Every structure is written in C-alpha cells, then in structure tokens.
C-alpha cells in the first residue's frame, strides 16, 4: 500500500483500525470471562490492559507516517469550512490582504522589470557583461579602445560594440524618426541571436567604412511597418535618405542590449559616420577618433571566468590604454574623472540615470508597499484576535479532549495561510490593474526614445506572490494562534470570559498592533506630504518663460539630407506659414528648448577684460529666431530683439541673460550696461559678437531637475548660427492642442516626407521635469491613504472591542451618575493614548524613511516641519473620529441592561 493510497483511503483505513482494536478487546474480554471474570469486569480489564483505545489508534496513525499530510488536509478542510461559515469575515480579511499583497506583487513586477530581469531572447544572459568606463552605464568607449580591448583580452570569448542614434526612416506612406543602433559585425553572434529571417552581418560588412549599407530590422518594427512581409529581405529601404538593403529580421522580443530603449534597426558600425547626428558641426571619423567615446561594448565571458576576474584583467588593458594616451581629459568628448573599467551583467533597464532613479524609486516603493502590507497584517491579526475571543470555547474543548497546543497552532496557521492565499489570488488581479496604472505614469519621453517596459507577470512574480502569501499568513496568524491556543481551559469552559489577566493581555497585544499601524501610516503620509510640497513648489517656481499655450514641433533636417541653405529656407518658410495659422499670436524657431532633452554650453569671454582660462564662463548656447522671446514668454529686459536685418552677412550679435551679464562684467550695476559690449563665443573658432539685448533669466538646463538655478545663457540669431536640429514654437490664443493637425498639414505642404517630432504642447515637455515628484506623490499618496484607512479601521475595531468588554463597567459608572461626556472622554482617552504613542514612533520612522526621498524632492527638505506637523495633526484627527464612534455607542448603554447582562 503506498502512502498516497493510504492518504486517499483514509476512511477505509480508519474503519479497519477501529475493527482491529475492537476485535482485540472482544477476544481479550472473551478470554477473561473464560478465566472466571464477570463480563463487566472482563471488559474493564481488557481495556485496562490495552491502554486508552484512542491513544493506541493515534499511535497507529503516527506509525503510518503520512500523518502530517493527513492533518494538513484535515486542517485545510476545517479552514475552508471556517472561511465559508463566516463569509463576511473572510471577505473583509481577504480584501485587506489583497490590497497589501497586490501592492507588493505590483511593485515586485516593476522592480523585476526595472532591475532584475535578464536580457530577453539572448543565449545564456548570465555570461554577458557590459563594459563601462567610470560611473554610470551609458556608452563610454571609443572605437579604437574597443579594438584593443577585443584583441588583447583573454577573459572574453568575444566582445561586440554598439552605439545608438536617431535615424530617419522613410517609406512611401510616411516617414518617422526611429532609434537605430550601429553595431560591430559580431554583435548578434556575441548575444547568441539568430535572425528569425535572413541573416546577421557578414565579416566583410564589418571591414571598410561606408561601403555596406545593410540593415537588420527589429521584429515588431518589421511587423508594424512592413506588415510582416516575408519578401522584404533583400529589398531596400530608405534610412537618412539613403538606400539600405534589408538582410535580416531579428527574433521577436529582442529590442537591443539596453532596455527600456527599443532599437528598431541595426546597421554595421562601419556606416556610423554617415548615420550619426552630430550635435556640433564638427565632422570627424568616429572610427579612428579616440576621443569619441560614444560607444558601448558587450562581451561574453569565457567558460569558468568570473566577472571579477574578467574586470581585473580588462582593467589592466584599460590602464595601459590610458597611459598610452597623453591627451588631457578636457579634450575628450566625454570628460570623465574616473576612468577605470567596470563590468556588470545587463539586468532590467540599462540607462544610467534612469536606472539610478529606478533603484531609488524601487527602494522607496518597496518600503512603502511593505509598510502597507504590515498595516494590513496588523489589521487582520486584530480581526483574528477578536474572533479568537469568540472561538475560545471551541479551542478549550479541543484542548480538553487532548489536542496538543502545537497541533492547534498548526491548524490555526493553516487557516490564516489559507486566508492569505485567497487574498493573494485577488491581489494578483489587483496587481495587474495597479501595473496598468503604473504604466500610465511612465516617463513621457517623446519618440524615438520609446520607453518599453514589460510589466506582464512571469513565473517569478507568481512564485514571489505565493511565498509572500505564505509568509503573510504566518505573520498575521502566529500571534493570534499562540494566544488563542493558550491552554487556560477551565475559565474558558466555565465561561469566565472576563478573567482580568486575559483581558489585559489581549488588549495589550491588540494595542501594540494599533500603535504599529498608526506609526506606519504616519510615516507613509509624511512621505506623501513631502512630495505634495515638492509639487506645489514646482508650480510656484518662476520658470522665466510661460509654457502654457505654446505648441512645439521639432525637426532633424540632417537626417533628412537637407543642407544648410535648404534647411534655413525650410525653417524660414515654416515660421511664416505657422504665423498665418488662425489662433496663432507669434511663431519662432530655436535650436534648444528650455527644460527639454538637450542642452549645449559654450565658453563666453568678454573682450574688454582678461579672464584666466580656469575662470572661463560657460553659458547655454541657444540660437533663436526673431520674436523668440515673445513666443516663449521670456521678457527682454534691455535692448532689442533679433530681427530680419540680423543675417549671416550682417554684424554678429547676441542677447545675454541677466545672469550672464553679471558674470561677464561683475562691475556693472544694471545688467543693461552690458549693451554694446563685445564677447567672444565658442571653443575653437571664436566668434566675436556685440551684445544688443539682455533677457530675463529662464530655467533651462536638462529636463530632469526643475530645482536647478537658471544657467547663464547666450542667445544668438538663428540666421547667424544655424542648426539642422531645431524646434518651432507657436504661441496660441487657446489650447495649443487645437493646432496640432494644422501644423502637421503645414509641414506636409513643405515636405511630405519630413517627420515632425515632439509635436506637443511645451507644457508637456516641461512636465517631464516634475514627473518623478508627481509619480511619487500619487503612488505614495494612494498607499498612504490606504494605510491610514486600514489603521483607522484598526483603531475603531480595538476601541469597539474594548467598549464591548467594558459594557458593565460603563453601565455602573452611568448608574452612579457619570455624564455622557465623562464616558466619551474615558474611551477617547484610552484610544488616543495608543494613537499618540503610534504617532511618536511614526515620526521617528518617518525621519528614517524620508532620507530615502532626498534625491527626489526639491524646494522642501526631507524633514520639513510643516509637513510633519500637518500630517501628525491629520492622523490624530482620524484617530479621534475612530475612537469617538465606539465611545458614543458606549454612552447609549442602558445601565440596568448592562448590570444585568452577566
């Protein structure tokens, strides 16, 4: 008989055991009667000889060793029965747990996608390593460096190279800018990827610059843009106005080595010079320039080589490279103090600054949802304890009948784990919904920087949720189980439910839980408060420009093959056409937008005084058309705006920001005195300009931090400082969105193959700056209020319980003449003492937690007194209400009824 056979024939087995023992007793009795005993005495003796029949049976069951499983099944059966017997209780508990577990599952899914998940599709992702110089994770190598590292190392089976750039892709229907990657010929081999159609790159395509225009397409790009056309391989497509032959389609799900950026197509690195968008006009060969450190490298470790060994070995080569290069770091495109080489395995998202943010946010979110779960656990534990009070008789009976305490605890824990699993199932659904919501909060990067994050649940999410549910069940179930199974059988059986010691102990435990809840929700809400303050500050900041009612649209004419003359003409005509659209006040052009994605700086030197090289002033370098200041809403304080007379042939002129004027000429009292002075602008080919105006300072810089002070800025006429990449801005009478289709039409009228980028209200680009604060405030706020609601229910529950226990005492007090007010005071005082202790602990907790937030806050410190005080007040108000309701009920007690009730 196998063990499962026994397990599933339990009833049959029980019957046989019973029969066997009965047979023994009958035989023995029979024999004893034969020996001359009376039948009664014989029966008694037989039982005595055997010992307790139940004990013997129990020992026989033990001997069968499947007992624990049988008991588990039995416990589960009892558990399910208990849950079904109290559907209301089950629903409340399961819903509470669903919130707690669901929040954790959602955040785990997010953390998994952001930080943990290995690269999809590639072969053995654990062997892959990214090579990075210095801090961060972006591309930091030059092509010559890559060649040396690839040839000299003995720790990698191979090393591949990649660099990304926006590429203009045009077909007959429409054209658009997508993210492309230039990769070394062995790229797909190193990753262990076989194209799903066609082939990867050939060795000869990786040898000579500019000779092999071939391309491998992303699978989903091929599906959406070419309708999965299998005959596409071998045909040509147009990239940056140049024909490329499609040689292969990458396997589905592969989006490049740097998620969350989604690469749409791969081109041999030998084509780099013809593909890349240069932010400056300087042209150099990226494949021979050791200072062009815009390449990344990904390698595969040899069998048996650890990542640490490989790093040490590669760093040796890197150091030799560094020493062989005498040029100063300042001359590098990517100046970096730390030049050591680091290796790490690609997991989650690989974008340096975003990853740092993700680590901070994940830690924060993790702490938050864990707190919510703990609050939920405390609530459920409280409910279980309240219920345990009603089940004391049942427990006492079972203890009296010989159940061991351990057995009882196990059964109670099975029940709570069962509850947790029910909650977890609902939690999974909730997590799915939360994740949908979270995706709505993804940073609104404009294309081509599509931010893809796969938040679908994988097996790890399910395992995590399952384990979390079991842990949760034990956490919230253990204390109530220990308490409920305490073997004080006699008073329980005698119905002395008011035994003083018992009451105090139980209340103490429940009080501790309430204190925990108040403390946790207070800490959460303080974090929320800090984010809200940050948001308010963000709204109050004087940006120095007015993004409302402004529509922007960007172009990159170089990708479209425009030369400078054609480009100038395009921008001039576009401004004219946009100005004529109905509802447009003014229109202009600029190479950079404030708080946008790009920022350029340039050294500026006053001509009338000597500035030592190490005190050179750097200013934002912006080229703008006439009426730019009016359109963007930055006041021009002194002098005149650029106009049609400022052409490439006329005198070079410039408008400086207030701050730049004061930096360049510290001696002047009014920035207006800068008018007429001359400056030299640029790194190498210095341009001498006359200052013709002074503009108000405006927040500029890169998008991700709103709190940085405005940088000094120099504005030059677009006509005198052309840029192929530029944005048109339009100030409208009403909602700028209403103009979108009109702008699209005007662009198509000039060039129907030109893809407009970032066609959106300027306020949307600016809103990226406060994205992290908004997301933080929303997520924390939701969880914080959730926690507070749970805590309020907890306080309410404990106070109700306390009131019901003290009915008699309250009745007595009222019979002796206590006023309603006195009774309320009595109860509220008791509850508030818990809330206050919780608040104090919560404050200390908040100080620790908010330290995590520091990097995400601005305009407010992590220990902002106003926020702390406000939240404490709010939490105490909620606590008072939660205490008052049961207290008022206590005063409704009829003294006579209360005194008689026992």
């Amino acid at each position, binding site marked *: 008989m196998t063990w499962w056979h026994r397990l599933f024939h339990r009833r049959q087995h029980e019957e*046989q055991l019973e*029969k*066997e*023992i009965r*047979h*023994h007793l*009958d*035989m*023995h009795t029979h024999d004893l009667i034969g020996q001359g005993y009376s039948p009664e005495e014989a029966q008694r003796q037989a039982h005595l*000889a*055997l*010992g*307790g029949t139940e*004990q*013997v049976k129990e*020992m*026989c069951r*033990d*001997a*069968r*060793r499947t007992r624990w499983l049988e008991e588990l099944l039995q416990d589960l059966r009892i558990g399910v029965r208990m849950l079904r017997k109290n559907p209301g209780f089950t629903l409340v508990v399961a819903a509470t747990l669903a919130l707690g577990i669901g929040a954790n599952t959602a955040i785990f899914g997010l953390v998994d996608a952001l930080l943990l998940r290995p690269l999809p599709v590639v072969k053995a992702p654990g062997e892959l390593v990214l090579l990075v110089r210095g801090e961060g994770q972006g591309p930091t190598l030059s092509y010559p460096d890559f060649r040396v590292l690839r040839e000299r190392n003995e720790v990698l089976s191979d090393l591949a190279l990649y660099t990304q750039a926006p590429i203009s892709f045009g077909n007959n229907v429409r054209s658009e800018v997508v993210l492309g990657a230039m990769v070394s010929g062995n790229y797909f081999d190193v990753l262990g990827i076989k194209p799903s159609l066609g082939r990867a790159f050939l060795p000869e395509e990786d040898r000579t610059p500019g000779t092999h225009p071939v391309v491998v397409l992303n699978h989903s790009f091929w599906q959406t843009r070419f309708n999965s056309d299998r005959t596409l391989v071998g045909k040509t497509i147009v990239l940056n106005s140049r024909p490329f032959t499609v040689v292969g389609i990458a396997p589905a799900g592969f989006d490049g080595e740097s998620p969350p950026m989604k690469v749409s197509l791969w081109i041999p690195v030998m084509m780099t010079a013809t593909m890349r968008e240069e932010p400056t006009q300087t042209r150099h060969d990226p494949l021979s320039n050791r200072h062009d450190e815009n390449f990344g490298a990904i390698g595969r470790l040899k069998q048996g080589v650890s990542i640490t060994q490989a790093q040490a070995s590669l760093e040796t080569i890197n150091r030799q490279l560094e020493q062989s290069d005498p040029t100063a770091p300042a001359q590098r495109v990517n100046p970096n103090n730390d030049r050591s080489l680091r290796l790490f395995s690609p997991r989650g998202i690989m974008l340096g600054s975003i990853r740092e943010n993700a680590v901070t946010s994940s830690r924060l979110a993790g702490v938050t949802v864990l707190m919510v779960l703990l609050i939920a656990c405390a609530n459920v534990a409280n409910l279980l304890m309240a219920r345990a009070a009603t089940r004391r008789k049942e427990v006492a009976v079972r203890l009296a009948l010989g159940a061991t305490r351990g057995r009882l605890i196990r059964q109670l824990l099975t029940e709570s784990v069962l509850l947790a699993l029910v909650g977890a199932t609902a939690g999974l659904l909730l997590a799915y919904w939360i994740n949908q919501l979270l995706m709505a909060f993804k940073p609104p990067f404009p294309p081509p920087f599509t931010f893809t994050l796969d938040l679908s649940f994988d097996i790890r999410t399910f395992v995590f949720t399952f384990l979390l549910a079991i842990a949760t069940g034990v956490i919230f179930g253990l204390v109530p189980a220990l308490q409920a199974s305490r073997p004080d059988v006699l008073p329980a059986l005698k119905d002395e439910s008011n035994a003083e010691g018992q009451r105090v102990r139980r209340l103490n435990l429940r009080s501790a839980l309430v204190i925990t809840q108040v403390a946790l929700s207070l800490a959460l809400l303080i974090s929320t408060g800090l984010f809200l303050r940050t948001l308010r500050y963000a709204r109050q900041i004087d940006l120095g420009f007015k993004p409302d009612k402004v529509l922007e649209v960007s172009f990159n004419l170089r990708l479209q093959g425009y030369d400078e003359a054609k480009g100038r003409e395009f921008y001039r005509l576009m401004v004219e056409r946009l100005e004529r659209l109905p509802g447009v006040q003014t229109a202009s052009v600029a190479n950079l937008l404030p708080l946008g994605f790009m920022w350029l700086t340039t050294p500026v030197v006053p001509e009338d005084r000597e500035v030592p090289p190490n005190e050179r002033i750097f200013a934002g370098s912006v080229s703008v058309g006439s009426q730019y200041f009016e359109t963007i809403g930055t006041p021009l304080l002194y002098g005149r705006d650029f106009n049609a007379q400022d052409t490439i042939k006329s005198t070079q002129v410039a408008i400086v920001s207030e701050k730049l004027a004061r930096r360049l000429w510290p001696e002047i009292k009014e920035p207006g005195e800068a008018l007429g002075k001359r400056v030299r602008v640029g790194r190498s080919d210095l341009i001498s300009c006359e200052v013709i105006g002074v503009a108000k300072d405006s927040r500029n810089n890169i998008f991700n931090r709103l709190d940085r002070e405005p940088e000094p800025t120099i504005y030059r006429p677009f006509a005198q400082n052309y840029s192929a990449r530029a944005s048109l801005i339009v100030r409208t009478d009403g909602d700028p969105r209403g103009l979108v289709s009109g702008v699209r039409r005007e662009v198509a009228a000039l060039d129907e193959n030109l893809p407009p980028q970032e066609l959106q209200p300027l306020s949307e680009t600016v809103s990226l700056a406060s994205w992290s604060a908004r997301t933080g405030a929303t997520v924390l706020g939701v969880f914080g209020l959730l926690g507070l609601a749970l805590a309020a229910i907890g306080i309410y529950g404990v106070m109700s319980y306390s009131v019901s226990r003290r009915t008699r005492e309250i009745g007595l007090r009222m019979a002796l003449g206590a006023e309603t007010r006195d009774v309320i005071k009595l109860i509220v005082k008791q509850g508030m003492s818990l809330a206050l202790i919780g608040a104090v602990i919560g404050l200390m907790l908040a100080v620790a937690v908010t330290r995590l937030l520091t990097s995400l806050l601005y305009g407010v410190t992590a220990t902002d007194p106003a926020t702390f005080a406000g939240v404490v007040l709010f939490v105490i108000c909620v606590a008072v209400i939660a205490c008052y309701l049961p207290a008022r009920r206590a005063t409704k007690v009829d003294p006579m009824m209360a005194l008689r009730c026992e």
Partner: protein
Amino acid sequence: MKPKSDLPQGTLDLLILKVVALGPIHGYAVAQRLVQVSRGVVQVPQGSLYPALHRLENRGLLTADWKLTETGREAKFYRVTRKGQTQLETEAAGWQRLTQAVSLILKMSEGGAG
C-alpha cells in the same frame, strides 16, 4: 508471581517479526503468543503492540489480509513479507551475536571477581 522484565529497547519489532513468521496471525493472537512463548517473563505492553504492527506494515516487513477466524469473526491477519523474512534473519543473527558478547563480558567480570 515472579517479577516480569521490561522488553529491551528495539526488541519488540524483532519478537513480533519472529512470531508472525510462524504463520498468519492476528493482533490479539500475537499478544497471546508472546506471553506464552516467553513464559510470562517478558511484559509485552499491549498498547505498543498495535503501533508496532502498523509500523512494520508501513515499512513493508509485514503485510495483512482480512480473514475469518476459527470462531467465524473477521480479523486482520499479518504475514511476513520476503523483505520481512530477510530483516528477521539479519536482526536475529545480530541479536545472537550481541547476547553472546554480553554474556561473555558478564562471565569475564564474574571470573575477575572470583
């Protein structure tokens, strides 16, 4: 009535195996037989008899069928399996060696005293 000795630890299983090996037998008869063959010297606690039977059955050393007794009642009859037979032989041999060794040691100390 001469005093009865308690059963040495671990020997109950061996004794049960031996008794059952003599032919199919039900629990009560095993208890009777143990008392008889040990001539009342060994105290077999009836309470531990059944758990031992079940343990041996669980280990696959015994197997059981329900049959009618001579008095016409249904009873659970145990038999020794082949595995049980082997186990009995090894354990019996081991027991022999142990008792011989023990008595040898006991004699030696008697000699030493004399």
